[in-house]
């Protein structure tokens, strides 16, 4: 819910009579801010108007208008709708002042916009590529940048099955694979931009005490058993203490957004499954919600579908949190046994997902205006059994085994502390934010779907350490079970999708930001439509990615062994971090 109607008489316009204008394009909302007033505007927004939480920063390439636009979504950490503001700069030389000094959470997101769109953020402390490697040619999300396997601007491609023959992109490429080089490129003369620059930056830190100790730079990952995938951390150590930590990512950058902008709207749903591959159902929801916002009242979700959405999303949360607890214990050294307990419950829930959607992990279950299928026979009973009988018992069991365990407590308490102020400033989301004492949950703060009908508590813990981040996941599982119990009791009969399922549809021009409280935090989808069958811009605000902004703050001063569990307690999934 955004205050679109209020934009024209918003007090912000009075505060900034110059340099701030309402965005009057049809289907758009918020304000357009002049680049030179941006920092001042953002500071006022944060300090005077209470919009202290910068959720998403991204760029849009408006090629036909010759403009680049940076879009910011700010919220109040006390709840409520978004305040959207934008900066427009010419496409040839896109320079925008950095907001890292006002909202540190913009750090990685600005780097991403630089990497993928080539928008330079002046004053950014560390403006390097983040998902691609240094030295890569071009900024791939620009509309005129074409990948090696480029065929056509938009899907479905006309070249598919020409005359029934199979067409393979690599047969067309002279190198026989997915590569393209600048015309004057000579590989023999190329010196790769290696990691030296990265390491050198980290070594700069000098200690000025009498003990002549040397700092060591240690590289963890991308192939490391405890990084939950292909994540990499480069840490500077003083003895065993972390002085500085630099996350390096992009090893699973699968070009989600570029592919998403070629896809039709419907084609993107299965791709969202593969973002946070542990919780495909809630990813679906975020995307579907954004597109439904664009569709406006052209579409209404039937009652039964609303309930099914809640049920699936809450089951997903349980799956995710239970998995996160298992892996955290793995990181703590309790190798695989807690994981086996966790996976046992996960399998039972996956059975339900498989029954309703046909796939264990990649459910592809949500549709615009409902869900894909109704429950097959027998599943409702299974769910009831799980939710009312087995899961509460099993969660208590997990609680009993782990929570008071001496090793768990000794390793986790007081480690990786993030204060509430920092958590908000770094745009942390989900369990990380709530474990730091900020009771912010999108389901309550800005309700979507039918969450306003259920009774549940927003779990919150106050120490902001690894232990609280573990506890809050247990709390949230319990709350999810509560919601599930109510939803299953109230589940009405009826249709599960609005109208008949359509393959392709017209989405009115405009922009929309749909966000849900995913298991890892606020998952947002920013979609810009130009009125055609494919999105013009498709951006994912990935909680795993943005939560990492605070990682180095959490690790500084702790031991290197703790860095592992701090990372584990943030609970990232690389598919979503790198997209």
């Amino acid at each position, binding site marked *: 819910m955004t205050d679109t109607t209020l934009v024209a008489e918003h007090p912000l316009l009075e505060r900034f009579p110059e340099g701030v204008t309402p965005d009057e394009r049809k289907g758009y909302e918020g304000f357009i801010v002049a680049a030179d007033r941006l920092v001042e505007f953002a500071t006022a927004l944060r300090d005077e108007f209470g919009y202290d939480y910068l959720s998403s920063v991204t760029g849009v390439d408006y090629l036909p208008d010759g403009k680049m636009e940076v879009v910011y979504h700010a919220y109040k950490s006390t709840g409520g709708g978004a305040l959207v503001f934008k900066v427009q700069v010419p496409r040839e030389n896109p320079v925008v002042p950095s907001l890292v000094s006002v909202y540190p959470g913009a750090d990685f997101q600005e780097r991403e916009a630089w990497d993928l769109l080539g928008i330079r953020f002046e004053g950014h402390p560390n403006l390097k590529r983040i998902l691609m490697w240094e030295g890569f040619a071009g900024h791939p999300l620009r509309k005129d940048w074409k990948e090696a396997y480029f065929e056509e601007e938009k899907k479905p491609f006309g070249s598919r099955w020409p005359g029934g023959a199979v067409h393979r992109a690599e047969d067309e490429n002279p190198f026989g*694979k*997915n590569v393209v080089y600048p015309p004057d490129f000579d590989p023999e003369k190329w010196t790769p931009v290696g990691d030296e620059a990265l390491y050198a930056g980290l070594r700069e830190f000098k200690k000025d005490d009498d003990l002549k100790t040397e700092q060591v730079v240690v590289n963890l990952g991308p*192939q490391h058993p405890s990084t939950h995938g292909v994540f990499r951390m480069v840490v500077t150590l003083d003895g065993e203490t972390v002085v500085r930590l630099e996350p390096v990512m992009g*090893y699973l950058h699968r070009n*989600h957004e570029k*592919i998403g902008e070629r896809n039709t709207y419907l084609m993107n749903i299965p791709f969202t499954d*593969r973002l946070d591959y542990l919780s495909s159902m809630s990813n679906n929801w975020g995307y579907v919600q954004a597109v439904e916002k664009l569709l406006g009242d052209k579409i209404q979700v039937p009652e039964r579908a609303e309930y099914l959405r809640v049920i699936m999303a809450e089951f997903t949360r349980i799956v995710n949190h239970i998995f996160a607890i298992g892996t955290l214990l793995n990181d703590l050294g309790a190798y695989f046994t807690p*994981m086996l307990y966790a996976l046992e419950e996960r399998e039972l829930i996956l059975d339900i997902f498989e029954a309703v959607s046909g796939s*264990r992990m990649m459910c592809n279950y949500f549709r615009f205006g409902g869900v894909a299928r109704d429950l097959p026979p027998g599943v409702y009973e299974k769910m009831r059994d799980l939710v009312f009988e087995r899961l509460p018992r099993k969660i208590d069991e997990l609680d009993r085994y782990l929570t008071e365990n001496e090793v768990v407590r000794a390793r986790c308490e007081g480690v990786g502390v993030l204060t509430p102020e920092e958590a908000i400033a770094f745009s942390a989301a989900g369990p990380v934010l709530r474990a730091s004492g900020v009771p912010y949950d999108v389901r309550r703060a800005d309700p979507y779907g039918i969450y306003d009908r259920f009774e549940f508590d927003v779990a919150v813990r106050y120490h902001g350490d690894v232990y609280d981040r573990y506890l809050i996941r247990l709390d949230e599982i319990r709350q999810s079970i509560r919601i599930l119990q109510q939803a299953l009791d109230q589940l009405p009969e009826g249709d599960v999708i609005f109208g008949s399922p359509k393959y392709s549809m017209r989405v009115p021009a405009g922009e929309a930001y749909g966000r849900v409280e995913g298991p890892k935090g606020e998952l947002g989808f920013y979609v810009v439509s130009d009125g055609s069958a494919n999105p013009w811009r498709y951006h994912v605000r990935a909680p795993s990615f943005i939560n990492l902004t605070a990682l180095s703050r959490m690790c500084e001063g702790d031991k290197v062994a703790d860095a592992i569990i701090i990372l584990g307690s943030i609970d990232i999934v690389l598919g979503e971090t790198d997209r």
Partner: protein
Amino acid sequence: MPDELNAKGYDIPPEMQNTVAITTLDKLYNWGRRYSAWPMMFGLACCAIEMIATAASRFDLARFGMEIMRPSPRQADVMLVSGTVTKKMVPQIVRLYNQMPEPKYVVAMGACASGGGPFKEGYNVVSGIDKFLPVDVYIPGCPPTPQALLYGLMKLQEMMDKQSIKSVRWYQKGDLPEIPVPILGPDLIDPRDYPDFEFKLRQAYAEKTEEEAS
């Protein structure tokens, strides 16, 4: 002694069947290897989660002697490439493969590892790990179910059964060649492309200008 160890054509008296086997060296060698093929603990993307599920209680990889996943390539026999291979990651994967001691096998798990999968057209995605490494078993699926993964691994075991000490590559004379590690340039560079790089580059741009002209 398991029956599968016995070579055909020998009668072992019933009272000794539990203690004596008459077999060939190949059979013994392969029998030992097939039940101790340790996978490398190495997950790339979504498929890795199904790999973990396969290792866990319901599907239990241990039944095949593969429960010990080793994070170090030096101790691993099978590289399960479980997920999307990106250009940024592939130098590391090739390096890991080079670090694995022989005998070593590669299993491409899932659509991505086999051929790029749903993300094939992406600018940072390698169209299948077989562009760089020799793959022994391909497992289709996105992700393959744990059952499919198990089936793939059983196929790998069958493949091991058919190998002979005489002809396996790691007992041949001379050093085994390493796979050249790709380089991150303006795009991914495969050193094996060097000889005709210029030619191909020219070809690419000739085609492009042709296309634009038409």
